[in-house]
């Protein structure tokens, strides 16, 4: 049950019930769509990037507590960041939820996602928004699927 408490921390439940930056950007300079066919989760990530800086970022879609909170926390962590900072945070989050690596960047709030580590079946939920972000930054047009990696 302690592992469950690590997974469903207050911050996660709060971001699930009241997702931040839950909107579509119009116009968006970057956009990608992500899908987890196993559970039906869908996410769209919308970005406004000027001079290599993420001026605005929002998301839309529907999903479980973990995928929704992860997307919400991601948008908070990345607003105002440079692209190279965003890539670094992506790498750190991925390492954190799949291995025992600690987070070192200033985006410390993302630490709450570390609880997912204990639930291998839920890692895809936590990473869906992040892989979709990566696709958006790379102008990938094909929707991201958790089942293609």
């Amino acid at each position, binding site marked *: 049950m302690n592992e469950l408490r690590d997974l*469903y921390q207050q911050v996660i439940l709060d971001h699930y019930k009241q997702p931040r930056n839950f909107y579509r950007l119009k116009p968006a300079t970057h956009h990608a769509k992500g899908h987890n066919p196993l559970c*039906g989760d869908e996410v769209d990530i919308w970005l406004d990037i000027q001079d290599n800086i993420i001026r605005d970022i929002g998301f839309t879609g529907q999903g479980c507590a973990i995928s929704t909170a992860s997307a919400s926390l991601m948008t908070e962590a990345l607003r105002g960041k440079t692209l190279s900072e965003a890539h670094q945070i992506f790498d750190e989050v991925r390492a954190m939820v799949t291995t025992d690596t600690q987070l070192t960047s200033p985006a410390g709030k993302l630490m709450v996602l570390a609880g997912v580590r204990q639930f291998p079946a839920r890692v895809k939920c936590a990473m869906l928004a992040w892989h979709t972000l990566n696709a958006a930054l790379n102008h990938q047009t094909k929707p991201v699927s958790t089942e293609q990696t």
Partner: protein
Amino acid sequence: MSSSMINTQPRLSHEFDVGSVRQDFPILNTSVHHQKLVYLDNAATTQKPQAVLDALTHYYQHDNANVHRGVHALSERATQAFEAARETVRHFIGARHAQEIIFVRSTTEAINLVAGSFARPRLKPDDEILITEMEHHSNIVPWQLVCQQTGACLKVAPMDDQGILQMHEFEKQIGPRTRLVALTHVSNALGSINPLQEIIHLAKSRGAVVLIDGAQAVAHLPVNVSQLNCDFYAFSGHKLYGPTGTGVLYGRAELLESMPPWQGGGDMIRSVTFEHTEYNDIPYKFEAGTPDIAGVIGLAAAIRYLENLGLGPIHAHEQTLLHYATERLSNLPGLRIIGQSPQKSSLISFVMDGVHPHDIGTILDGEGIAIRTGHHCAMPIMDHFKVPATARASFALYNTTEEIDALVSGLNHVTQWFGK
């Protein structure tokens, strides 16, 4: 079958002793996350009784050899056990001839065999295949492939919001071009039991061939293919308390004989030269390559186990569980049951306000309770009910009302986690 609700904790039938049945399934003593396992994912796969495990071990320890080949003693014994299993299956589903029983890998493979060997060579452009809205992907996609290959079109008979097939619509959809009707006996995502007698009579009176997907039926209801008068009936061994990797296709002998082989190889031939191959008789014509001999022998052990308990008492026990669970889950605030047909097999699909099924599944797992969450390989059903996924608790002969109480207690914890 009664659809009335039972209001108090019911007393289970005297002829069915679930306590002693549970002793037959060693895995039920397992702990998960330091909690006693409560296994409610039986529609995905069932656990195996000791009799099945013993049959597998005995075969590998004493009889293991390839079938239909050797003259030596072990090959004889393996062949005899394998063919005895065919007879066990024949009797179990009420087929007239053992040669109408083809061993395959799964229900999916059985349906693909019919798609590839029956439908694909016969269907012409504008011929029609009729399925229903409540099919598993494995009874949708093989027909879509056939339609792409032949120019035939796929028609879909709708269900209503209770999860009941709309018979008048179904009847309207069977036209002069309907060559094949393929539908499920019991819906894996809703539990609805389709009125097969009526459907098959209707389809056959209009000249269509009928395939029934029995994957979710054979473990829960007595099935007799001769009485049903269907042309094909497909099911899996592993949902029937047997080993994974085994499945059965029943096909009417005349149809099977008229169909070309599906796969080529050993066992399916009578003679081979480089110029010409003569095929074996049914069922061997459709059993190329070494089959899952141990699995089939294990499946026969599972069927004997079920027949010994009796499908009637099993059905009554499971209906008691279903009605008890339906009553208790209906009283949970914010919980909605998806699929409310009065004719239901023992499973409950549900959603909860403000909680994704995946999170329900993870929290229940923390309490040792195994349920299925997701789209259940039936995405069109999810679309009908406008949900991305559901949680599904499915009950088997070894489940108890106490386990349903544990489920309800777990769901109350879900509400506490996600409450305001």
